[in-house]
């Protein structure tokens, strides 16, 4: 035990775990305490809707690092504990178990939570969200309980055709369940991709037997008429139609966990405001991960990202800041999604694009690229089973290299020649 006060990290997430270890690498010798409202050491969140839900991985296989490493680095964890209040004046945290704890430095890695659907029947059992390991365990247990005696597959309704919804649909389908994805907009992934990519994923899912319904708003979750059991039985839509549902998964986006920061008077917008060194408006407090709104020079705006690379890299900057060093965080955002035999890799942010160019056949094959351009410069790319183009896309965007339509669209043009 050091005689100095500890650095406390709120959130045992990708960002929280990385920040703790990076603190040691940056030379922090005082105590480090991670306060987590979950019961586990930091784990990989992306597999939750993929391999974990599909039963290909077990919970212990998704830990980011082994428990022994945290112990060796003298990093302690308070599990199942929530911080109720940050008192910045006294540098003290009030915990939900009634205790309080003083900090020397504080890091907010509070992440984001699933956005809740607030409609009639939302409180019925059988309605799930998919954000944490516990969520997945509950879904799996519920599925096992609901399996009919004759082992008929369950009818699963997924509300929301975003990445989480589609990945869950792929996982459930591979387990043999009957899946319907319901999307309120006129196409899946509408918020994040071009129509060609949406259409591709709709066709892909339909080819595996998933039913995708667009332009449909959920109005209410219904239980069995005159039943005593408060369990979802049907989903009622605003057009009056209904779908049977043994289980419902709601995947309609997330909300950043900014309330603690906000109540303590830190600057908060759509995320906890930090600078390029992950510092908040308080010199003693940094923040990293899904909860932060941070500057990005590539896109000349402040952005909030829901991504693992963002959490890990920003955490490294935050740890350096705590140790008095400035390590600028200004990486190109990138994302990935695995569904069936398709790997989607996304380089950059397509917000504000004025042109799209397709490389490959987006209709008849499972391998193509959509380039997003703004003022003739590639600003983002969706790469479907095109890992090589994904790698080049990252370089085209970060190095601001211009490529013309023919070079981008012609599959016989070697993109590597743009870099020589």
């Amino acid at each position, binding site marked *: 035990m050091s005689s100095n006060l500890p650095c406390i990290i709120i959130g045992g997430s990708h960002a929280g775990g990385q920040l703790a*270890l990076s603190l*040691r*690498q940056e030379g922090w010798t005082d105590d480090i305490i991670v306060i987590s409202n979950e019961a586990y050491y930091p784990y*990989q969140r*992306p*597999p939750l809707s993929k391999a974990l839900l599909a039963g290909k991985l077990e919970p212990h296989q998704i830990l*980011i*690092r*082994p428990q022994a*490493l945290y112990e060796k*680095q003298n990093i302690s964890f308070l599990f199942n504990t929530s911080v109720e209040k940050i008192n910045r004046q006294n540098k003290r945290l009030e915990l939900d178990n009634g205790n309080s704890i003083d900090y020397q430095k504080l890091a907010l890695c509070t992440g984001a939570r699933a956005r809740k659907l607030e409609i009639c029947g939302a409180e019925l059992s059988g309605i799930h969200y998919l954000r944490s390991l516990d969520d997945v365990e509950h879904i799996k247990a519920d599925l096992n309980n609901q399996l009919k005696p004759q082992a008929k597959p369950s009818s699963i309704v997924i509300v929301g055709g975003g990445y989480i919804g589609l990945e869950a649909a792929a996982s459930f389908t591979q387990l043999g369940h009957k899946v319907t994805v319901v999307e309120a907009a006129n196409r899946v992934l509408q918020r994040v991709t071009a129509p060609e990519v949406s259409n591709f994923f709709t066709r892909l899912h339909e080819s595996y037997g998933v039913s995708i319904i667009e332009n449909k708003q959920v109005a209410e979750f219904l239980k069995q008429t005159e039943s005593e059991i408060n369990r979802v039985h049907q989903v009622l839509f605003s057009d009056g139609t209904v779908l049977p549902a043994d289980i419902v998964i709601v995947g309609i986006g997330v909300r950043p966990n900014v309330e603690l920061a906000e109540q303590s008077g830190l600057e908060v917008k759509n995320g906890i405001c930090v600078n390029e060194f992950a510092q908040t408006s308080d010199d003693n407090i940094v923040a990293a991960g899904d909860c932060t709104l941070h500057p990005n020079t590539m896109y000349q705006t402040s952005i909030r990202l829901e991504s*693992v*690379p963002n959490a*890990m*890299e920003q955490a490294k900057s935050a740890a350096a800041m705590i140790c008095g060093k400035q390590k600028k965080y200004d990486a190109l955002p*990138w994302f*990935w999604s*695995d569904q069936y035999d398709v*790997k989607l*890799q996304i380089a950059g942010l397509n917000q504000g694009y004025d042109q799209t160019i397709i490389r490959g056949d987006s209709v008849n094959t499972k391998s193509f690229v959509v380039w997003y351009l703004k003022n003739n410069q590639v600003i983002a790319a969706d790469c479907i*089973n095109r*890992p*090589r*183009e*994904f*790698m*080049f896309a990252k*370089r085209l965007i970060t190095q601001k290299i211009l490529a013309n339509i023919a070079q981008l669209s012609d599959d016989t043009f070697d*993109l*590597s020649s743009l870099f020589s």
Partner: protein
Amino acid sequence: MPLIKYIDHSGNEFEAEVEAGKSVMDGAMDNMIDGILAECGGCCSCATCHVYVEEKFLPITGEAEGMEKEMLSAVNDPKPNSRLSCQIIVNQDMDGLVVHMPESQY
């Protein structure tokens, strides 16, 4: 447990005992060895765990194929012995394996 040696671009050497069944990337992550970023956590999506396998071990580790090979064709300074370390699953035969980490991952 197989002992894996990681050498960074400046020649600094790090050794880690890596359980069979884990990847060479896991070995670096679990022992805080810099030079392997592992942004995607090991699902062959990012190519930030690129290593050069010392030639004599290539018959044991095998060469890159498919998705991994395509990713590697577009990294900085690809070589015939390039691998993504998340795709090298450690077994007993790999005791003593040596991998070199590229400068671009720092």
